[in-house]
């Protein structure tokens, strides 16, 4: 049976038999770059289409249904339109930073892709502090947003950027603490170790109620960190026109739009890896036969299935909850989520030390 692991190994062997190590590294990094950009393009197209379909379903509409079967080429047509549109730069804007900001947001989204394990043995960089790396990188996206809001020289953009900054900096705390609960249980920050620790069941089921609480807090914080409704104060269209990307048009706007969806994918991939076992199939303890049947489903399908389930959850939130006010947003984080997650971390530490988890 073909697996992605075998394919990467055969490419590695084929290249290293013919070329010097430096060239092998170069060619492999080019392959990785092409794959990452390809993944970005495909994900952008699929997720935007999915969002519109989910939204339509929630509101008992049909959604896009003209271009292609079930409107699946609608996003491609929209992208073509955005490419052909003129990218305006306002007169009063800081020209360099205005044009630079979309790339910062995009590059940050790309960097966070590195330690994610897409399938068994299919990972760009298995760094020994993978989880910490992702949370560090995802905290940087706010810099791009702040640059965009400030360089536009528009009061709505600046207000949106400031709101987004306050929001991301504060929700990072509870996201980090809920990630730490899994790190405490596993005893490692490496993504591959975390996935392998879930061989006899996912942490969501093994870790009792504290892990469930951590999972809920993580999902809330992830929604807030990606500036999604009900936390979309940064681009609240009824108050701030479009928030930090008010002045952007054409492909520059499209980059912000794409980065938002890539960030959703990445936080959901991290959530799936930490709490739902990543590429690990659904295993129950040591029921060897049941586990064996589950292993027949390829690991990449497990990973993408879990990730898209979480993405669906976040899209569902958007059409379920009304938008929070700024004071409610900060109260929720600092007065409720942060104390709960601090106490929860303590509980999980006790569980991990006493070996009470399954």
């Amino acid at each position, binding site marked *: 049976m073909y697996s992605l692991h075998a394919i990467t190994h055969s490419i590695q062997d084929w290249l290293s038999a013919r070329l010097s190590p*430096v060239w092998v*590294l170069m060619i492999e990094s080019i392959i990785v770059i092409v794959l990452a950009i390809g993944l970005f393009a495909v994900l952008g197209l699929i997720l935007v289409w999915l969002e519109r379909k989910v939204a339509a379903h929630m509101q008992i509409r049909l959604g896009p249904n003209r271009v292609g079967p079930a409107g699946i080429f609608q996003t491609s047509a929209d992208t073509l339109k955005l490419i052909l549109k003129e990218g305006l730069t306002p007169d009063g804007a*800081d020209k360099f*930073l205005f044009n630079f900001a979309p790339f910062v947001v995009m590059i940050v989204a790309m960097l966070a892709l590195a330690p994610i394990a897409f399938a068994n043995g299919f990972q760009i960089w298995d*760094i*020994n*502090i993978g989880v*910490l*790396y992702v*949370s*560090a*990188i995802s*905290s*940087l996206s*706010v*810099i791009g947003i*702040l*640059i965009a*809001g*400030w360089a536009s020289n528009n009061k709505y953009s*600046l207000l949106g*950027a*400031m709101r987004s*900054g*306050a929001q991301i*900096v504060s929700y*990072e705390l509870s996201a980090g603490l809920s990630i730490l609960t899994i790190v405490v249980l596993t005893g490692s*920050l490496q993504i591959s170790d975390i996935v392998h620790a879930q061989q006899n069941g996912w942490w969501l089921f093994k870790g009792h109620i504290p892990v469930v609480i951590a999972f809920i807090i993580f999902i809330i914080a992830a929604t807030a960190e990606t500036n999604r409704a009900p936390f979309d104060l940064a681009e609240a269209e009824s108050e701030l026109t479009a928030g930090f990307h008010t002045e952007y048009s054409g492909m520059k706007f499209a980059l912000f739009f794409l980065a938002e969806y890539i960030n959703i994918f990445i936080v959901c991939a991290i959530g799936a890896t930490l709490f739902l076992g990543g590429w690990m199939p659904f295993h129950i303890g040591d029921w060897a036969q049941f586990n064996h049947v589950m292993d027949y489903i390829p690991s990449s399908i497990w990973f993408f299935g879990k990730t898209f389930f979480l993405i669906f959850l976040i899209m569902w939130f958007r059409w379920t909850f009304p938008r929070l006010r700024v004071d409610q947003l900060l109260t929720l984080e600092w007065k409720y989520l942060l104390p709960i997650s601090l106490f929860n971390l303590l509980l999980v530490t006790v569980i991990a030390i006493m070996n009470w988890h399954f």
Partner: protein
Amino acid sequence: MNISQILFGILTVLALVSALGVVVSKNPVYSVLCLIVTFFAISGHYILLNAQFLAIVNIIVYAGAIMVLFLFVIMLMNLNAEVEPQKSKILKFAGFIAGLCLFLVIVAALKNADEKTQTQATQLAGGDIGLIKNLGRALFNDYVLPFEISSVLFLSAMVGAVVIGKKE
């Protein structure tokens, strides 16, 4: 020239150029952005020394949190080159002398440091003292007291911030 040497060169040039940019650029927002680039270059150096944990913590604390707050404040104040207060000549001269003194001390300190031979340098690069497990062991075995005292210091700083913020 192997890859790590090339990377070291690129990162060093980047760090020096962006550090100069912090001082030279007229617009304070550009200064802060240059400082962020400097922190990134220094994190790259940590990774070359196989100290990934330090590198990531450097990014989280400085580039991710402190510099974001800096950006926040500077963008909200909307400082321009025109409104920048002009300092007196004497202050500029005093700053110049103080900077020179610091530079002299740093050069003197570096001159007395052990010269790392090529083998020592490679040992440093291949060593795993910067990995999170060894770092945690060192912090909680050899340096428990200073570590805990510094955390108390942070706590008192937090309490101080809350007290100042509460003051009407």
